């Protein structure tokens, strides 16, 4: 079993596995193509499922419910969302923030748009703390205003996945649009532009789901390991990282999305992804050691 996992998750396979995983999950989460015949959206028992990824449940293609939308709903009706907490924490304890790197459709969109060639910019890491503020404001205002404030005033995912398709396909909605849609539309355009120039700007600075899941990186079964013996601190891991973090500084970084690109990108094979005792994304080539490592 271990050898199968090692072979399956070998570092050579990891990039392909990651892309396959994300495209597959995108098609699974947003797979209601019946909408082409009938411009409505999926309504059925699968909407009872929620996954720790940001995907608007009003998206015409969506099969599952959005955890942040659901959190706000439960806060509005003054109920503790045990089901939601259970889903997020169970997946978080096992995989940490890996769902951001392996499942999230909005993360996939950001990574695709970042591939557009051109000048790239770096987001100051102090802005990474904004997502915690985003989570806090969402919780406090949802309770206070009894309204899904994140969905209503901010969420670019909702505007892109639900707002635009419904407005295009359902003409009756168009006269009902308010200034709120204007704000949300402008925010969505700003984010889409940022996606081209910066690495995952929404995930790093704004995503409340990422803020929740990040905490599980400290305790999760799925972990990153950096060999202090092999690491040359060249920081190539940061260059290849979609979240722009230096994993060698802190393998349990709250912003690590466990995508494994650093495992593949490390020139000295110093980084491994492990599932507690079982090594996955294991090294399958001899590490290139520095001269200083081989001496003495």
């Amino acid at each position, binding site marked *: 079993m271990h050898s199968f996992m090692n072979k399956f998750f070998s570092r050579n396979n990891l990039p392909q596995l990651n892309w396959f995983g994300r495209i597959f999950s995108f098609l699974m989460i947003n797979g209601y193509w019946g909408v082409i015949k009938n411009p409505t959206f999926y309504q059925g028992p699968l*909407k*009872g499922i929620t996954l720790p990824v940001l995907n608007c449940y009003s998206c015409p293609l969506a099969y599952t419910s959005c955890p942040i939308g659901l959190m706000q709903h439960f806060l509005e009706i003054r109920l503790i969302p*045990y*089901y939601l*907490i*259970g889903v997020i924490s169970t997946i978080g304890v096992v995989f940490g923030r890996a769902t951001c790197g392996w499942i999230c459709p909005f993360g996939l969109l950001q990574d695709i748009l970042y591939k557009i060639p051109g000048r790239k910019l770096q987001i100051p890491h102090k802005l990474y703390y904004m997502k915690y503020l985003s989570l806090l404001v969402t919780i406090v205002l949802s309770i206070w205003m009894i309204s899904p404030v994140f969905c209503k005033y901010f969420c670019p995912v*909702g505007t892109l996945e639900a707002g635009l398709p419904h407005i295009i396909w359902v003409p009756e*909605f168009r006269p009902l649009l308010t200034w709120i*849609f204007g704000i949300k539309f402008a925010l969505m355009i700003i984010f889409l532009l940022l996606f081209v120039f910066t690495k995952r700007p929404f995930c790093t600075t704004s995503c409340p789901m990422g803020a929740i899941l990040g905490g599980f990186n400290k305790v999760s*079964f799925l972990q990153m390991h950096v060999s202090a013996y092999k690491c040359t601190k060249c920081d190539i891991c940061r260059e290849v990282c979609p979240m722009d973090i230096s994993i060698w500084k802190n393998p349990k970084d709250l912003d690590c999305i466990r995508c494994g690109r650093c495992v593949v990108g490390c020139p000295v094979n110093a980084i491994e992804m492990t599932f507690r005792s079982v090594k996955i994304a294991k090294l399958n080539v001899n590490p290139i050691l520095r001269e200083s490592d081989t001496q003495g």
Partner: protein
Amino acid sequence: MKKRIGALILLLISIAILLIGIKMGQIEETSNKGNLICLDCIGIA
């Protein structure tokens, strides 16, 4: 070893919370909410 046991305990607590939620009928509540179009998400409300 301590961390592994800690993670296992956390996992068990998480599963217990999940089961409480399921027993309270929160999957149905989630489904009901998800099956209504979210006008806030669209920008109409």
